[in-house]
């Protein structure tokens, strides 16, 4: 047996090691903390109430574009959208120059006159169009409000050459209006209005010169003239209803496809089983012309089709038979496993050219994982327990942009959280 004097020291050492191991391994004590940058303030007050759940961001070649909706009233915007009382500078050479004077994008479109505005879901659509949206730009260090519009931003996207598209449902304009910029969102001009019939949210999949692929929940759209004219390349809902795939469609309108394009140009449309019982996914694969190259059903769930570094496509797959979570890279129809975590959930994948970020673990061990090398290596970082609407993954700044509370002059604070 051990000498008597060593026993209390052994007990104490075991206790200390147990406490350390408990915190270190089980509560992921090795997860690094976020670097919280000093809080700054927007120079422009936003009209309350701000709908932070509409906050979205897209990367440009020198920063990010952001948009957020608000339910507040802005007299100048309303005047511009309804009576054409827009400032003359807004219409210089048929484009707006965004900046601190906050041009109103509605000045670029021609309002429909007479009759009721057509919408696929008219009452809801009309409510959205009565709102106010702000366009913001960030260089990774500062956020500036640079434009306004009466209506809702449906989607945004840019390529590395600085070509950006903004889709919006505007007041008194049928369907979608498309704005285009060649300088990363500084100057905007109208590409088209009253296009993409029945689309409500638009995902920009790829911008290649004048060619652009975009999708809403059911359809894949393509334009080869800089967004002026659009063709529906494929309708996944129609394909699904015609295919023998066994997915349970209780209501077509509830079937939301997730779309994205990998680095090879393969387009994916994925929908999860809406029915009871075991989960399954249906995935259609298209080439750039919208031709179906593959279709199949697979048990389990596929979450978060996300573009990462170099336009590579990533998704988290949850296997059904044994509950297993795996991060895959989808490339030319192949599923390449990147990181497996067994039964420990992987969720909420975010991706940009510089960073992949996702939530991992559960309970007290919940944390986040990030990778700066396209998933080769991962580091643990503390969980952000209240992933509120006011936070958005900054696709250019490799971190999270968090909006804070307004000061006494209604100027919102913001700060970056960086790994």
């Amino acid at each position, binding site marked *: *047996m051990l000498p*008597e004097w060593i*026993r*209390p020291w*052994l*007990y*104490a050492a*075991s*206790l200390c*090691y*147990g*406490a350390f*191991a*408990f915190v270190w391994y*089980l509560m992921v004590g090795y997860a690094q903390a976020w670097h919280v940058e000093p809080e700054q303030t927007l120079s422009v007050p936003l009209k309350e109430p701000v709908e932070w759940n509409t906050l979205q961001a897209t990367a440009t070649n020198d920063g990010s574009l952001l948009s957020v909706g608000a339910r507040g009233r802005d007299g100048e915007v309303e005047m511009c959208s309804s009576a054409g009382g827009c400032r003359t500078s807004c219409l210089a050479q048929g484009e707006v120059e965004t900046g601190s004077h906050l041009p109103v994008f509605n000045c670029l479109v021609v309002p429909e006159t007479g009759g009721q505005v057509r919408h696929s879901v008219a009452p809801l659509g009309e409510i959205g169009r009565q709102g106010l949206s702000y366009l913001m730009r960030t260089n990774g260090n500062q956020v500036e409000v640079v434009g306004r519009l009466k209506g809702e931003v449906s989607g945004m996207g840019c390529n590395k050459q600085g070509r950006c598209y903004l889709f919006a449902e505007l007041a008194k304009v049928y369907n979608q209006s498309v704005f285009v910029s060649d300088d990363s969102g500084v100057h905007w001009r109208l590409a088209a209005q009253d296009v993409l019939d029945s689309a409500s949210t638009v995902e920009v999949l790829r911008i290649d010169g004048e060619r652009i692929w975009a999708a809403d929940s059911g359809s894949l759209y393509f334009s080869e003239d800089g967004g002026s004219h659009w063709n529906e390349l494929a309708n996944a809902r129609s394909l699904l209803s015609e295919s023998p795939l066994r997915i349970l469609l209780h209501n077509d309108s509830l079937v939301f496809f997730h779309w994205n394009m990998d680095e090879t140009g393969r387009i994916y449309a994925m929908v999860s089983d809406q029915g009871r019982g075991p989960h399954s996914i249906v995935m259609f694969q298209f080439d750039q012309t919208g031709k179906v190259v593959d279709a199949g059903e697979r048990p389990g769930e596929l979450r978060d089709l996300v573009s990462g570094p170099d336009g590579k496509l990533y998704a988290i797959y949850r296997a059904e*038979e*044994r509950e*297993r979570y795996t991060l895959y890279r989808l490339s030319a129809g192949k599923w390449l496993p990147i990181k*497996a975590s*067994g*039964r420990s959930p992987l969720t909420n994948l975010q991706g940009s050219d510089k960073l992949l970020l996702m939530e991992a673990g559960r309970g007290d061990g919940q944390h986040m994982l990030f990778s700066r090398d396209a998933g080769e290596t991962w580091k643990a970082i503390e969980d952000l327990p209240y992933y509120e609407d006011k936070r958005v993954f900054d696709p250019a700044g490799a971190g999270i942009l968090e909006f804070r509370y307004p000061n006494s002059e209604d100027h919102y604070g913001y700060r970056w959280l960086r790994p």
Partner: protein
Amino acid sequence: MIASAVRSLGVVRAGEVFCVNAQCQDFKQRVIHDGSTLCRLRTDKGVFFFLSEQFEYGLPEQELRKGGQLTIGAHRLRDGSAWLHWFQLANGESWEPERQDLRWPLLGVGLILALSIVIFMMPSDKPMLIMVQTFLGIIGTVILPFTLVALVLWLHPIKWKLRRELVALKAGKPIVLSEGPSCSEADTLPLDDGVYGGVGLIQGVASEIGLFRIDENIRRYQLRCAGETFTLAESSGMLGSKSFVFRRQAPLFIGESDRIVLLTMVDDGEVHGVLNLTDGIAHANYHGSPYSPQTRRVAFGVVVGIVTFMALCLGGFTLYDWHSRGVGPDYWDWVELAEISGFFMMMFMMMFSGIGLIIWYIQRHSSRKISLHGIPVEKVVALALQWRLHNGRSPVINEFS
């Protein structure tokens, strides 16, 4: 080779089964605290203990006392003495343990099986059915330990081995007989009565042995030796007349007219050591000492028991989980099992370390109060060990408290 080397030191394997032809030298019995009659049979082949309640019929005391020749079946205790299971007189008459009634354990097994089938077959989609399932589960859980104990007692290998030997003996077939060590009486200590370094020593013949009741639950051994009356704690860990197969420690037995040495400690005035010169067995009481072999064994048993129980539970739940989902385990299942096991191990490590620290703290303070002069019980133990070794016995001291 190792076994023979160990045997040469006088160390025996506790629980070892053996049969021996022996001649009785002395037979004594006394009533112990639970009302049973503990018997000690000294023979030329060693000392044997047993309870008279083991046998259905009365003991042939005359033959046992007057030097009768016996064939004995017994299992070894730690200190070299043995627990007697059966014996046969020279005239072929034999005394064997009562046969265990198998009805109850078998009924228990049947009931548990029936309850398990009902619980698993019963649909559990209604609250009332779930309540019934729970109720049946509780009944099964209560029955289970009793049934397990009865089954273990019935199936215990010591029992079966010795029964086989007895059946063979009765049938007139040859059985393997052990020679066994010859045990003579032990020497007295070459010391006069007195106090030696805080340890009091009294030698003499025990008389007027009986039980002294302190209160309803506490009774102490009372005896006279060298003209003085002493009381000492009753030997702990007595097992019932049916479960003696588990016994590995010789009981504290002082017979009338036994020559004994009592070792007391000046600090607390208690008897801490009993050296029985008649049967060569030494007992020590570790009261006041931070640790004792018995508490260590109990603590170790508790730790092993809890860890084993949790491991069985974890294994059971894991197997049920794998079975219910209908797919065998893969790499991640094993990883998860290892993680959960690691978690439990860590929790146990923290728990036992914490408890160990608390016990160490308490004992450190309480032992200081008792051992005012810093005289540890180990002095008594060391004296007893030396005495055992000097008399050619194994270095095993029985503990009483």
